[in-house]
């Protein structure tokens, strides 16, 4: 990924970060890793990519936890199909396993956890349309 792409991708992820209430989030995408850190309460560092994220101020007041998570994002454009029973927040994953499907033109594209971990956040609901790169799950390793 070029710097521009990383910057724009980070900006998109910042929203998800604020929503999940993490202080720190590491995102893996192929060979590239992006780490997002919430700005300190008073005064974000200049140029901080997630500073303008919506909801960041409100969440910062509660002193969010410091956690590191891998973001599992959608590789395709399609409709989210959760498993039955669905993967839920707080669930522990024993190894690499399916988390959901994204259905594209009738084809079910599996979404995998790529290893064991703890499900910190589920960002999508059953039947939700998602785009390429959209965060689906945050997995703490």
């Amino acid at each position, binding site marked *: 990924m070029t710097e521009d792409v990383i910057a724009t991708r980070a900006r998109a992820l910042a929203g998800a970060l604020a929503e999940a209430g993490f202080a720190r989030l590491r995102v893996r995408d192929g060979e590239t890793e992006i780490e997002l850190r919430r700005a300190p309460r008073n005064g974000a560092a200049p140029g901080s990519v997630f500073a303008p994220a919506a909801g960041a101020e409100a969440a910062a007041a509660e002193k969010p936890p410091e956690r590191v998570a891998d973001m599992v994002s959608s590789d395709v454009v399609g409709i989210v199909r959760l498993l039955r029973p669905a993967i839920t927040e707080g669930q522990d994953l024993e190894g690499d396993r399916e988390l959901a499907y994204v259905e594209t033109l009738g084809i079910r594209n599996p979404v995998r956890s790529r290893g064991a971990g703890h499900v910190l956040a589920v960002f999508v609901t059953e039947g939700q349309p998602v785009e*390429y790169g959209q965060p689906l799950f945050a997995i703490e390793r």
Partner: protein
Amino acid sequence: MFKKVLIANRGEIALRINRACHELGVATVAIFSDADRLSLHVRHADEAFCVGPGPVMRSYLNIPNIISAALISGCDAVHPGYGFLAENARFAEIAKDHGLTFIGPSPAVIGAMGDKATAKRLMAEAGVPTTPGSGIVANADEARAVCQKIGYPVLLKATAGGGGKGMRAVTAPEELATAFATAQAEAEASFKDGRMYVEKLILNPRHIEVQVLADEHGGVVHLGERDCSVQKPSHQKLIEEAPAPELDPAVRERLHDVATTAARAVGYTNAGTLEFLVAGDDVYFMEMNTRIQVEHPVTELIYGVDLVKEQIRVAAGEHLGFTQDDLQAHGHSIEVRVNAEDPNNNFAPAAGTLSTVVFPGGPGIRVDTHVYGGAIVPPFYDSMLAKIIAVGRTRESAILRMERALSETHIEGVNTTVGFCRELLAEPEFRAGGIGVGWLPAYLARRAAAV
């Protein structure tokens, strides 16, 4: 009329289509790559879907993701723009299979025109003049017989050829045997296919193309011609104008007649362009582009027709809103392509952040662009940043207006073609009109020698 259209493109043409849709009261869905997240076409559309990372194979050519975005968002049609999937018959077919109207001609026509040999044969059958030539010639003697019939100079071409490999120009019979042997050996080495054919070489022709528009009810019209002879050595167009200057009225009329006849003969629908080589009174069909073209605005400005809106209306099954007699051209229009490339370095494309972007305005000027101050030019795509189009009562007034417009244009952060195009507009040969496609390469050679 459609309810919602997916725009399967980026850049200025995505904005152009978005504008046409919104003026027709049609909602729009943009697609974008990771590298285009902050692009203007994303902001202008009613909805937008990221379809992949920067490289085009995984985003703007990613058929499943693009079709999926259209279906998820409830679109009933897809506009492909130009480039990318615009002339991909399979994409048109897949769209149709998923209940989406492809805004363009039928997949069969796209496929036929996309294959050069088929297109040439169909056009010849429709009575369209094509470049004289042969089928496969087995050896130099067979080639010589063809050459005697069509006359020198000729081009020896490998059927599998590309990028100039396996191709030789021959100006006299005594050069033929050696040229044939070397071209064939090159073709065998490069493509493992030594089949050769002969085509008449047209020296320094003009590139003149005719815009056609056809509905699904048999209505076919032409919207005159465009002269796109100012081409870089890579054959990419740089300056286009309409109508073609210094063109014999009889040749002009013939081009228009041939274009509409050909469009009817192949059952063409929607907007299309027939490209011709013109040398004196001779006219040769080159290829047909089954899509809207980059340079369509010069036609729009002299005919007062919105070609993209007509594409959408026709695809929705409506009749053309006019007959040939209703169409009258007024004045002269010229377009300059503002590309992020360096004219002093073989037009090498540039990427980066545009620190300053100031476009011209005022009477008779139209700017079609997707860039703004601070915009990022990603390395993955076409280098065109903008099209500046000027219209005037006469060719001279349009050129003067363009010179004024280019003097108002300031783009910093990357090299552009703005200054170079001002230089070209001032050239007496360009001013006189009627130059051939060899003019710009020759000008560049003179310019390089002078430095």
